């Protein structure tokens, strides 16, 4: 039986020899950006590549998701490698689609390169025979929580229950037979260096808010109107008045936008709409802030005698990563880029649906450098594809080999020692309990 070092060498060789092809996959996706649940061409590309590799797959999971399983020579745990299919929408991004504004301003295109690079490397008989268990290659839709209106429409049509790709795949049972999971995300933060061990991420709920006032001629009879825009701006103030009560350690983020601010300037605004996230480090922190946000929204309505409809939509769970799985990843990262180039970050205040996966199984979500600019902004571009795709793919492959080599001993131990926050069933009940629609009438 070859040693794990030998297996990694063989795998890395395959990746290196196909590096141009792998990087081209990422660049093709970069040039064909598609936001969540619309990743038709990206999914087609993944299907083609998997077909070329002769790997059977199932497509159309949660609309655009794809799963391909590589069976190892011996029984053992199932480890998932995830790659996110979706882009953001950033009109000014240099690689934005001119008609849709879609753009890979978060580096997901590199993840599909990594995923397929890992598939190429691991789908070699010499390697699979030496490993135990199963490798689930999953291309997941819709990590970015955007286009809420559109997704809500899909939900109402029964095509989705949850608005994020991984929660929907969990619901569909695609993680039922998965024991541990990993993915690597690009970063532009210099402090996170070339490969980065990360800790936690904020979770979030999303909210759709409608203030309902009463229209009236704004010049002729403002006294007959109820100004929904005043209700909304007061509600924003009320939210700000609560900020001093958010604990630093909870890293609460509440950042609303107004998506509709009135109909015409000559009429008292009667229909004003808002969206917001309420993020926090723990579920308790999110719920505490969420109660305050709801109260603030009601106060805005009450202030002017308007009504407010508050729709709370389950977002993502906080990310909590498995330390034992990192014990496999980190030495590989050191081997690949050198100790001095391995960074670490304790907590990030964004949110990812990898958090949801991390609630139910051991999971890691390390970062790879190579990008520059501000995440989700027009300046975020990947400059070092060798690092962002090739090195990252190697880090994944090496971690999988460590987890599933040696009869799957280390992977099995990680699974055995992991205490999930909740079962899949509990996760789904919790998510469903977060979905709420409240109507508050001031008068």
């Amino acid at each position: 039986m070859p040693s794990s070092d030998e297996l990694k060498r063989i795998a890395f060789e395959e990746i290196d020899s196909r590096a141009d092809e792998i990087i081209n996959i990422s660049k093709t996706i970069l040039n064909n950006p598609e936001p969540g649940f619309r990743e038709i061409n990206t999914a087609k590309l993944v299907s083609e590549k998997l077909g070329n590799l002769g790997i059977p797959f199932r497509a159309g999971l949660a609309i655009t998701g794809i799963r391909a399983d590589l069976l190892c020579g011996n029984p053992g745990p199932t480890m998932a490698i995830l790659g996110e299919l979706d882009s953001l929408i950033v009109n000014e991004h240099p690689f934005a689609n001119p008609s849709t504004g879609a753009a890979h301003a978060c580096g997901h295109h590199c993840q599909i390169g990594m995923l397929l690079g890992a598939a190429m490397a691991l789908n070699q008989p010499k390697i699979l025979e030496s490993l135990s268990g199963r490798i689930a290659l999953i291309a997941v839709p819709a990590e970015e929580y955007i286009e809420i209106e559109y997704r809500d429409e899909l939900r109402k049509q029964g095509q989705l229950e949850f608005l994020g790709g991984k929660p929907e795949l969990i619901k569909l049972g695609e993680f039922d037979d998965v024991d541990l999971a990993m993915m690597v995300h690009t970063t532009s933060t210099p402090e996170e260096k070339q490969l980065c061990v990360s800790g936690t991420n904020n979770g979030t709920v999303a909210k759709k808010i409608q203030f309902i006032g009463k229209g009236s001629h704004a010049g002729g009879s403002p006294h007959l109107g109820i100004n929904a825009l005043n209700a909304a701006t007061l509600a924003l103030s009320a939210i700000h008045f609560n900020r001093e009560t958010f604990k630093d350690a909870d890293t609460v983020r509440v950042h609303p936008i107004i998506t509709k601010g009135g109909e015409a300037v000559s009429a008292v605004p009667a229909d004003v709409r808002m969206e917001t996230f309420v993020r926090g480090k723990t579920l308790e922190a999110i719920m505490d802030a969420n109660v305050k946000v709801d109260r603030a929204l009601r106060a805005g309505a009450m202030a002017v005698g308007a009504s407010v409809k508050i729709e709370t939509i389950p977002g993502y769970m906080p990310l909590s990563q498995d330390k034992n799985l990192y014990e496999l990843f980190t030495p590989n990262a050191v081997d690949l880029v050198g100790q001095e180039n391995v960074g670490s970050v304790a907590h990030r205040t964004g949110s990812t649906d990898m958090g949801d996966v991390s609630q139910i199984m051991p999971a890691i979500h390390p970062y790879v450098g190579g990008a520059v600019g501000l995440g989700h902004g027009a300046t975020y571009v990947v400059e070092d594809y060798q690092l962002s795709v090739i090195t990252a793919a190697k880090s994944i492959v090496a971690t999988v080999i460590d987890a599933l080599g040696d009869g799957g001993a280390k992977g099995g131990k990680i699974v055995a020692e992991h205490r999930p926050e909740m079962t899949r069933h509990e996760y789904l009940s919790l998510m469903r309990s977060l979905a709420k629609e409240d109507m508050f009438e001031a008068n």
Partner: protein
Amino acid sequence: MPDKNELKKQACATIDAHKDEIIGIAKEVLNNPEPGFSEIKTSRLVQSKFDQLGITHKDGLAITGVKGRIPGGGGDGPRVAIIGELDSLIVDQHPHADPETRAAHACGHHCQIGMMLGSTLALTQESVLSQLSGEIVPFAVPAEEFIEVGKRLELRDQNKLEFLGGKQELIKLGEFDDVDISVMCHTASDMGDRTFALGGTSNGHVVKYVKFIGRGAHAGSAPHLGINALNAATFALQAINSNRETFKDDETVRIHGIMSKGGEAVNAVPADVRLEWRVRSGTPKAVVANSAVVDRCFKAGALAVGATVNITNIPGYLPMRNDSRLQELFQQNASQLIGESKVLVMPPRRNRGGSTDMGDLSQLMPVCHPYTSGAVGAGHSKDYVVTDYESAVITPAKIMAMVVVDLLADGGVKGQEIMSEHRPAMKKPYYLQFQRERAEVIEYSGA
């Protein structure tokens, strides 16, 4: 029998003859300013003047009020009150402020006591009084200015008062039950080239004592444990301002107040924040509606941060309704005395924005509340002083005496006519019910 003009001439001559004495009374009050329900010396001065004139009087009405009764020689007829307000304001730095209490006549009420006594003096001359029917009721009333609310609430708790305005309390006590018509005259400093003004209206109002109750916590180390009552109050004020666009121009809505307590110490989350607020509007209905809007805003402030709010609503004054026929008498007599060009008649809906408890009385009976010149400076400010006592005291004393002659001469026929044609907006039981409904304590938890 002398005609009305002859009687008026005699009355005016009496006033002219006693001019220095009458102005002296006003100046004595000016130099002894006392705020509402504390007008001890001022009340005593009125009593001694009534005694000098041999007028029977009741004292201590609504604490400091003094009410005289002077039956005319002509038998039964209308009972006409000539009202003078006893109270001062509190205006630090006013040139005539009491150095200890800061009380100051920055609204000219001292002139009212002078003119009330001047008119009374003129009308009690035998030659005039014998020709009048009914009754003259010179009435020194306490506390027109709605100030020192905390102190008055204490008086209320001690059952010394129910209402916080002098005329309101006197109405409740029944002291206007035996009055048919009421007149008074207020000084003004903003009349341009006119010297006597009639008509217009004033705002009604509700007074609010508001307490936001939060939860104290170390503002640096544990703000997450606190509930910020100052944020609740600030939000409420923003909320009030956001409603301003819904107020109708013709309702002359004025909503204003002060924060009487904004926290304890800067390093603690404020847990006790207090406001004193006032909601004024041009009609009783609008007062009720806008008071409810403001209450809703206070509740919204509590809701915004999860605090509690306690609102003590206190009935304020009602809008002024000048009786048009009574006002005509004032207009005729003023024109006769000082010339038509000096008399300004404001349309009935012209609202000066302020409030007076003469408004309450005007809901119940024919009332006229004109203005006379003679003062300078902004009302209620340290700059408000009376510079022309002839115009501020003597002229209105004469005009009121002349109006009373018109009302009560000829068997009081004119007074009877005004009474019978007047349609009161409210009767006393409804008035009391309306004002008592304004007295409300609201507690709302936003948690």
